[in-house]
């Protein structure tokens, strides 16, 4: 049995020995390098571009500008193709642009022999602009008469709403207490350590091969085809090991360009390898949100109503656009399913870097606002914040109030209870003075969240698995789902081993997805893969097992129905200790007998039409040094209901990483923009503060295991959720410590200074 065990991660050895090959590790002699010429203004139009001097520089192969590219507008978001025109992603990109929409926009591209020539050639291109006023805030871009960033858009890319339960105004009117608040979140960047990189070449006159650090090879293939106006079948995308993505690689960024360049350069290999500085501004960021909230509560602690009005800033291009705000509303609905909820969201264009998918896809923004106001509600009615949440959060037996789907598993109450005990909530609160006055003050905070295990029913959910019995009795598995560091390959091997009845180490998972041969799956996003792939892997393994047993029956003369596979051997179903024949013998017979058998293989493409809600919470105990405006986390715990935990060590790894990212989003990380020019000040790892080893405390992590029947192995989403609740828990703890409510992220020393000063603490 492999599920639930911390088996050896199957790519760990390749990675600690340096043998794992990432996109940059495949060397092609004579490969050309390409680099964008990026705009030095945030908003405007190129009036003149002269590339002649650059073109003449020795070592320069070609220079292309916005004049030289195909005029197919395309969407870059890593979503499945939509058959419904109204759900199609917004097609607002060309390979290069004349209309500059953010500081660093791509107006030309140079192809050259090496990076020094590239650097020099870029400096030799003369560009003149007609400059427009940079609209870097939603307020600016929504001002009456503001220039449209995309023609015909009114600077609004999307708007949506839903309402569940009682009419929101009625519900609010009926509540004992009504609170209002406004909460703002910042522009973050993913900061995967491997920058975006892709290269392309052609090995015949037709087909373009693109090797890319992508979370979504099959989607990338389609979008390259759309961008170049080529049949999708002419594109082949290969995804080797990838050095982190966190959503920034759930977007098609370099792939269409490298494909275009190789096509134009006679199939020669061309690589684009973004620098860190480019990656920070020229790929994707997290949407900043501005959320207005109203909530109604009764004095007995019943949450009556949540009215959420979100303004999401997608920046210069749509990318995932309004989907993020839409999904955030949908995924947070499961948390307080018995309250009346109205959710309205609008997404606007501005002249900041394009926002796309980032770990937990809008949920951190919305849950921050919700958890802030929930905390205020609990305080207002004088109820312990944990008790208030326990009274109102989702329970087993609740329904999604919009879809009517019952929650088949829900352990949030147990998560809260467990977290409360772990942090010593009651003891610590009882032990400390009522009012703290010293320079350093202690505070406790809690926050909780709901999330989802995929994108259904908004998007189609498909996963493919192919499992092969090799000649020697070992197993090969191919899936379309992608390993991006989260451990998917290992999980898939566990699933296959579990269902087939073979030892884990007999299962090999092909890590690379090559769209020419890999089964179809849309890729790594929405914390979907272990959930939706489980349904495909389970069915494929079950089918292959039946085929193996059927053939074993032929080999042994025992009826297949009486046989089973245990520990890699064919056994009598009623006596697993009694090996009838080895898998190897069955395999050899199936492959090489002259009259019977064949390659034993099963392939399943499965569409999952459920979407299990997943839950969890954060408890934090921290210290605030008021005069230094600094927060020091003493203890932090994340407790998750993610169904059955498939691999405890890797699951904890997801939580540790998510919590670290969450702490940083709460306390440090922010892309700092000059509001006058749209220039990003901190486009590097020195100035953009992702946490180092000395900035992250030891992280406590536990699971409340439930069983989710809609999944192949009882599991639910875990990849993204751990990032969601740390920021509001930290905010609530700072409030607890200092009496100051911080309603904006990140809560840097600068932010704390401003608020402490206003509150008279300094």
């Amino acid at each position, binding site marked *: 049995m492999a599920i639930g065990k911390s088996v050896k991660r199957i790519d760990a050895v390749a990675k600690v020995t340096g043998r794992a090959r990432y996109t940059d590790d495949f060397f092609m002699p004579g490969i050309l390098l390409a680099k964008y010429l990026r705009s030095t203004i945030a908003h405007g139009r190129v009036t003149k571009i002269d590339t002649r001097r650059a073109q003449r520089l020795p070592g320069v192969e070609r220079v292309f500008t916005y004049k030289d590219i195909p005029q197919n507008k395309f969407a870059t978001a890593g979503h499945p193709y939509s058959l419904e025109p109204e759900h199609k992603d917004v097609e607002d990109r060309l390979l290069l642009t004349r209309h500059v929409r953010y500081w660093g926009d791509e107006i030309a591209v140079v192809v050259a022999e090496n990076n*020094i020539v590239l650097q020099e050639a870029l400096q030799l291109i003369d560009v003149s602009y007609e400059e427009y006023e940079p609209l870097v805030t939603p307020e600016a871009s929504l001002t009456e008469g503001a220039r449209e960033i995309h023609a015909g858009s009114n600077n609004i890319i999307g708007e949506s709403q839903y309402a569940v339960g009682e009419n929101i105004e009625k519900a609010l009117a009926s509540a004992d207490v009504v609170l209002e608040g406004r909460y703002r979140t910042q522009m973050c960047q993913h900061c995967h350590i491997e920058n975006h990189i892709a290269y392309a070449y052609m090995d015949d006159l037709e087909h373009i091969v693109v090797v890319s650090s992508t979370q979504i090879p099959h989607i990338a293939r389609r979008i390259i085809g759309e961008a170049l106006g080529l049949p999708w079948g002419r594109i082949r995308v290969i995804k080797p090991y990838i050095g982190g993505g966190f959503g920034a690689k759930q977007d098609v960024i370099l792939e269409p360009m490298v494909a275009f360049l190789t096509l134009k350069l006679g199939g020669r290999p061309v690589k684009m390898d973004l620098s860190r500085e480019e990656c920070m501004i020229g790929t994707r960021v997290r949407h900043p949100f501005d959320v207005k909230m109203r909530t109604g509560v009764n004095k007995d602690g019943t949450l009556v109503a949540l009215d959420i009005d979100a303004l999401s800033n997608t920046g210069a291009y749509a990318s995932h656009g309004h989907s993020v705000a839409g999904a955030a509303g949908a995924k947070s609905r499961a948390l307080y399913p018995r309250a009346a909820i109205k959710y309205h969201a609008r997404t606007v264009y501005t002249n900041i870097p394009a926002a796309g998918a980032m770990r937990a896809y809008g949920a951190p923004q919305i849950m921050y606002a919700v958890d802030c106001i929930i905390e205020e509600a609990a305080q207002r009615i004088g109820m312990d914040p944990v008790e208030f949440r326990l009274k109102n959060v989702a329970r087993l037996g609740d329904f999604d109030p919009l879809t009517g789907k019952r929650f088949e598993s829900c352990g949030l109450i147990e998560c809260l209870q467990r977290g409360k005990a772990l942090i010593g909530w009651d003891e610590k609160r009882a032990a400390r003075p009522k009012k703290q006055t010293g320079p350093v003050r202690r505070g406790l905070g809690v926050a909780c969240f709901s999330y989802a295990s995929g994108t259904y029913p908004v998007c189609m959910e498909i996963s493919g698995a192919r499992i092969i019995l090799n000649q020697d009795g070992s197993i090969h598995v191919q899936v379309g789902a992608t390993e991006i560091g989260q451990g998917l390959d290992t999980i898939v091997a566990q699933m296959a081993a579990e269902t087939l009845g073979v030892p884990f180490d007999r299962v090999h998972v092909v890590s690379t997805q090559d769209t020419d041969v890999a089964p179809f799956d849309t890729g790594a996003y929405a914390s979907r893969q272990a959930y939706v792939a489980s349904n495909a892997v389970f069915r494929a393994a079950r089918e292959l097992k039946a085929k193996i047993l059927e053939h074993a029956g032929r080999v042994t003369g025992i009826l297949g129905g009486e046989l089973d596979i245990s520990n890699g051997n064919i056994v009598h179903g009623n006596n697993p200790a009694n090996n009838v024949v080895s898998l190897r013998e069955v395999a050899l017979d199936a492959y090489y007998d002259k009259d019977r058998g064949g390659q034993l293989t099963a392939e399943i493409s499965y569409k999952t039409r459920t979407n299990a809600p997943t839950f969890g919470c954060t408890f934090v105990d921290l210290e605030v040094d008021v005069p230094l*405006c600094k927060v020091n986390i003493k203890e932090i715990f994340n407790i998750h209901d993610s169904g059955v935990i498939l691999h405890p060590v890797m699951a904890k790894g997801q939580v540790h990483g998510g919590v670290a990212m969450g702490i940083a989003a709460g306390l440090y990380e922010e892309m700092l923009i000059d509001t006058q020019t749209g220039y990003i000040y901190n486009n590097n790892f*020195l100035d953009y503060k992702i946490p180092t080893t000395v900035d992250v405390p030891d992280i406590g992590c536990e699971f409340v295991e439930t069983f989710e029947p809609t999944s192949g192995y009882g599991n639910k989403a875990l990849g993204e959720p751990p990032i969601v609740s740390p920021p509001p828990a930290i905010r609530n703890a700072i409030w607890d410590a200092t009496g100051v409510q911080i309603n904006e992220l990140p809560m840097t020393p600068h932010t704390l200074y401003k608020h402490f000063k206003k509150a008279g603490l300094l």
Partner: protein
Amino acid sequence: MFNIKTYKEAGSVKEAIKLLQENPQARLIAGGTDVLVKLHKGKGQFHHLIDIHNIAELDFINLNDGEDLVIGPGTCFSRVEESPLIRKHIPVLSEAICTIGGPQVRNMATIGGNLCNGVPSADSATPLIALNAVLTIEGADGLRQMPLEDFFLGPSRVALKQHEILTAITVTRDNYTGFHGHFYKYAMRNAMDIATIGCSAVCKVEDSVLKDLRLAFGTAAPVPIRCKDTENKVRGRRLSQNLLDVITESVVDDVNPRTSWRAAKDFRLQIITTLAQRVVKKAILNAGGTIH
């Protein structure tokens, strides 16, 4: 590849001076952790390099005949930080240095490079200013010495002529004997960060009297600075909370922080005043004093 147009390796200080004279565009490279980053970012002023990375005569830490502590500017931070001489005589410098970058950077970056860059946030500058460090500079015109404090002229500007090289950093015996200190780096992260404010205090305490205090700040003005007025106000006074409060109030007039995208002036002042009190207090405690 770095866009280096000319590269000359100097085997000695004399040779480096000669090479600098030959090419007015040339800049020195020692540890490389600043120069190579600037080249990576396409900064043109570093196209012509004279490499002093391997000049052994710049890489040393010793006590001279007068028991003055002398540090070769080509010594990498890790060696300075871990040097028994430094730890024994001026541990405040080790305290400051271990906050710089990360271990890999400290294994390459040199203390002289940190000073010669002339950035107001240089972490090694404030403890050395507080210790009245003196620089020895060698150039085509010969040898000269100047106090470190006068070396900083403005952001990224130091009192070094094109043909000159920093050859020694000296803390004289009378400037460390009996002195104790403390350093605090205030930054947004606990490693790999630029100081929002750096603060060094070095003091001498006898019989509950603050015999001497040197208080220095980084990023509190266009250059690393000493708080001379404050030092003069409190020198010779009895240790007390009131004394610390005087320091807190007084430093505001000594410093001149600017608003930049990294931090606003009023925020920096808040940190400066808080650190003035806390760092001096810790230095006094380290010196065996007590504050009632």
